[in-house]
């Protein structure tokens, strides 16, 4: 083997070694700074599991609460669907102005993207806490908190989708003299529809999960029930809430996969 080839392999080995050593060093430094001991952490794991197995099993008492849980669960799910759909409608029309393919000028594009980034990057929990000042502990607070983040995220996602899949059709219809609104309905909506539906279904799933957390803050929906049982130390009922949320999210995921397969 010639010298330069050997050198290349040697250098690669050294690089891996240095990276590995650096990772170990970072772990040691941060563990000693936070007084975290891996062995103790691992040792307490079986105990934690045993506690969960003992306390967090939905029992008979919890099952009696099931109708109430189901009621709140449906309320939360429907709210998430409503929020997502309404936010998607706003986001779609807003994203038309943020897309490069639709031919609005660069300043309009940039403003739309900045506004969308603002709504998206403030976490929904923070939105909920801010909005609590205006709406109080109310279902509207949760609604708007989810609406803002969903709107920001979907606007961004729709801009990407339109730029990616609709640009060619938009150019052709522009060249044939079609006006903007005709182009939206005849080129952008048909070509971007699968992407748009996929994003909406994904956001519905995400929003059901997030609305639980927001419900704890705003004392509404399924999050409120969880908080209530948890603070009463009624762990078995609280765990039933968690289990039912998981089942719902999985169910929604299955349904959305089915929808996606049919429309694509």
């Amino acid at each position, binding site marked *: 083997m010639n010298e330069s080839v050997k050198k290349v392999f040697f250098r690669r080995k050294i690089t891996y070694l240095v990276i590995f050593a650096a990772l170990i060093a970072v772990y040691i430094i941060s563990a000693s700074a936070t007084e975290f001991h891996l062995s103790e952490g691992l040792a307490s794991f079986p105990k934690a599991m045993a506690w969960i197995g003992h306390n967090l099993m939905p029992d008979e008492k919890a099952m009696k609460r099931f109708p109430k849980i189901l009621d709140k669960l449906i309320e939360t799910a429907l709210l998430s669907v409503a929020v997502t759909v309404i936010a998607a409608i706003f986001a779609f029309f807003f994203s038309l102005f943020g897309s490069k393919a639709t031919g609005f000028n660069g300043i309009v594009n940039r403003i739309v993207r900045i506004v969308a980034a603002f709504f998206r990057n403030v976490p929904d929990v923070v939105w909920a806490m801010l909005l609590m000042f205006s709406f109080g502990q109310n279902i509207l607070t949760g609604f708007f908190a989810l609406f803002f983040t969903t709107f920001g995220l979907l606007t961004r996602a729709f801009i990407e989708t339109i730029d990616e899949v609709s640009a*060619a059709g938009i150019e*052709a*219809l522009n060249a*044939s*003299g079609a*006006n903007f609104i*005709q182009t939206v309905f*005849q080129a952008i909506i048909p*070509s971007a529809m699968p992407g748009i539906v996929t994003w909406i279904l994904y956001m519905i799933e995400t929003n059901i999960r997030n609305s639980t957390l927001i419900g704890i803050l705003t004392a509404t929906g399924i999050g409120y029930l969880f908080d209530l049982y948890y603070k009463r130390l009624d762990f078995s009922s609280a765990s039933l809430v968690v289990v039912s949320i998981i089942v719902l999210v999985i169910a929604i995921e299955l349904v959305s996969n089915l929808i996606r397969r049919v429309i694509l």
Partner: protein
Amino acid sequence: MPILEFQNVSKVYNNTAKALDNVSFSIDEGEFVSIIGPSGAGKSTVLRCINRLIDATSGSIVYDGQNVMKLKKRELRQVRTKTGMIFQHYNLVDRLSVIENVLHGRLGQKSTVCGVLGAYSEQEKERAFAILDELGLADQAYKRCDELSGGQKQRVGIARSIMQDPKLILCDEPIASLDPRASKVIMDHLQKINCERKITCIVNLHQVDVALKYSERIIGVSAGKIVFDGRPDELTDDKIHAIYGSDGSDLITDIQGEKS
């Protein structure tokens, strides 16, 4: 009578790169003109300046008696309705059916509401089917465009532009993504449209041999300038090398073979 006249047209990108440099030429009604030249020479820019998908920086472009560079939005749309365009990548709405894509050619002449709803008259639909039949796509009318081959897609593109009843069709590398057989079908159709419907065609081409075979006139573009403008039989080897900036016989096109 010229249908299109370029006078000292220049296009500058970002204040530095000159895509078109003082381009002047005129095209008569009913002509079949090919524009050849290396990639990045400005062929595409010439076409797109005509229907203002790109705005030229200076000069004047008179098309069918109007200076297109001075048009307002509404007038520009009017001009675009009488100008068909065919693209290298077909630019169809892939998820719609063939017939819907052909009918898109009518959008420019329809009201916004009818266009949004896709409400076309019986007459328009009959015409769309007749055009598809003529292009050999009658059996594909209800298929989705993403099920078609490249050659079929390009024929849908041609049908869409005929549907506009254009005076001029701009073809931007119509056969650059097609195999030789499909390329021949497309070029034959373009020639037929030009002869039978008397629609002026301007075609950007990479293939010198195709340009020689089909066009009545060839314009050679190099680095934003017109370096050749004449009949195919005036295009000698030297002139081809001037267009492509090559010397000797290092081009893949063997035109001597094609000419004989």
